């Protein structure tokens, strides 16, 4: 009986009888779905690694690991093939080094400016532009390198071949600039205001506050940004495939053209190389090398982050 107003009130806020059971079911369902989502990503990763390793094993049944790691010629499609990874590695490392030598200092400077100096209005204007750079398809960057930057560079560097590593390196640096900038800036802006004020209160200038206090405090995020940029540069494909040429060439000279690991994979998988041939298998071996490189970067990044992790 709902006699008193109090009873009525209590009845109004009493949950339905099956309320708890329903809630438990929804909870269980949610847990299953979330676990499935996590599992899919793990299985996909395992699958990729499995394919890479197993196909590479086929390759290494025919080619010795010693040759793969020590020879300096890469001619897997020739009649008398040679399988030394160094020419592809040198190309990959050279282009990435050029890209990072642009993206890291420039990204850090931009991040310092955006987080410590820029008035909110400027920041609001610059950020979308940077994000737009991020959204440009990489093939566009490739043609930009080949058609614009290379001719421009040729005007300054006589004898620069049409395919060279300098031009795609520079363009790739611009391409990954948004990553380094926006992640470093986020890390720097996350540094608490009290820490900055502590520096100012001691008489630090704005610049010294930025480089002596804010950057050290944000170093884990900044490192993560650079590692991500590194992985991105090493794995980048279109820009180099278009503008750096497709000839495996053991050189660290940016004025020459050279194929990178990714270029070679594109070349083989789009070409008429027969499936199951040794040339075809070779792309899995170099793919595995690429995977191990990015894995190494990520592990280094993880360790650095842990080493510098700070409790605010």
């Amino acid at each position, binding site marked *: 009986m709902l006699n008193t107003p109090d009873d009525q009130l209590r009845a109004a806020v009493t949950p339905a009888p099956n309320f708890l059971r329903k809630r438990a079911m929804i909870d269980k369902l949610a847990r299953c779905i979330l676990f499935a989502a996590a599992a899919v990503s793990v299985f996909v990763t395992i699958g990729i690694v499995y394919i890479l390793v197993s196909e590479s094993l086929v390759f290494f049944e025919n080619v010795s690991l010693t040759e793969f790691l020590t020879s300096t010629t890469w001619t897997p499609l020739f009649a008398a093939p040679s399988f030394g990874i160094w020419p592809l590695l040198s190309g990959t490392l050279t282009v990435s080094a050029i890209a990072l030598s642009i993206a890291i200092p420039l990204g850090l400077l931009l991040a310092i400016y955006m987080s410590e100096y820029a008035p909110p209005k400027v920041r609001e204007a610059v950020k979308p532009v940077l994000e737009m750079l991020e959204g440009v398809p990489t093939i566009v960057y490739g043609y930009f390198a080949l058609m614009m930057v290379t001719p421009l560079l040729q005007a300054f560097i006589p004898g620069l071949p049409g395919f060279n590593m300098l031009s795609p390196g520079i363009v790739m640096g611009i391409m990954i600039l948004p990553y380094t900038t926006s992640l470093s800036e986020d890390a720097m802006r996350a540094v*608490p205001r*009290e*820490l*900055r*004020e*502590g*520096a*100012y*209160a*001691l*008489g*630090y*200038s704005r610049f*010294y506050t930025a480089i*002596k*206090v804010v950057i*050290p*405090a944000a*170093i884990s995020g900044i490192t993560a940004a650079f590692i991500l940029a590194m992985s991105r540069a090493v794995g980048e494909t279109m820009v180099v495939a278009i503008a750096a040429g497709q000839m495996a060439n053991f050189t660290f000279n940016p004025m020459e053209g050279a194929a990178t690991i990714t270029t070679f994979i594109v070349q083989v998988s789009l070409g008429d190389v027969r499936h199951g041939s040794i040339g075809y298998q070779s792309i899995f071996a170099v793919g595995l090398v690429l995977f191990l490189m990015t894995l190494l970067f990520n592990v280094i990044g993880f360790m650095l982050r842990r080493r510098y992790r*700070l*409790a605010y």
Partner: protein
Amino acid sequence: MTSFSKSIGMMKNVSTTAEPVATKRTHSAPPPASAGQEDTWLLEPEEELRARVSDLEFWYGDGTQAIQKLNMPLVDKRVTALIGPSGCGKSTFLRCLNRMHDLYKGVKYSGEITLMPENVNLIELDPMVVRLRVGMVFQKPNPFPKTIYENTIAGLRIRGIKKRAVLDEMAEKSLRQAALWDEVKDRLHQSALSLSGGQQQRLCIARALAVQPDILLLDEPTSALDPIATARIEDLLNELEGQVTILMVTHNMQQAARISNYTAYMYMGQLVEFNETDALFTRPKCQRTEDYISGRFG
């Protein structure tokens, strides 16, 4: 030490004629012209002053006036506490003294904060120069992500001091002053973030003391600490009496009573009463002060 502070030479040694120190106690303060409403009372201390605040007004960037016609002496080498209800402008006033507000846009000051004995108005100085002379300790400990040693001498480094011997000596001296030396002397080169909250706050005090500040500002320095750490900081502040000029904001009236020589009660951006701490807490001159300290409001 003295040669050190001289070598910094931030002030161009303005004048040798110090302002005559008021030796007479005026028992009724001249009420500020604008605040004709309720009573205010300002003690004229007999001791030497380190600074005098005259008709200070302050506006935030959005136009809010946070300080109104504030007059107050700051006695040399004594601890002065600022008390008052939340939002009364204590911290805002404190941050005027090292020009911290200048980090943010559109703020405006009027009036004077005269540093003595040089007789310079720090409102007219470059904020960075002011901060080289007026140190500050914040509510939450904010050590830099560096070693304990580097934190202690951070202010010296920024002043271009490079001599290892000077740095080592000052590090030890200020860590001792901050009653932290014995706890950290064996791990000076470990991260400051490995210290406990109370130790971090004492490190921040050491960092502020290392540069021999003219005035040390403390903005509720114990409000983020547990009672034991608080007691240690209070002991330390008692030790510093007679060595450093301290202005401290506190929410805790017992703390003000325990530590300070002088106390200022602020309300709604105005100074209501400034007196010797004992007098203010036992025989407040103003009704509003009495209401606040007896817990009738605020």
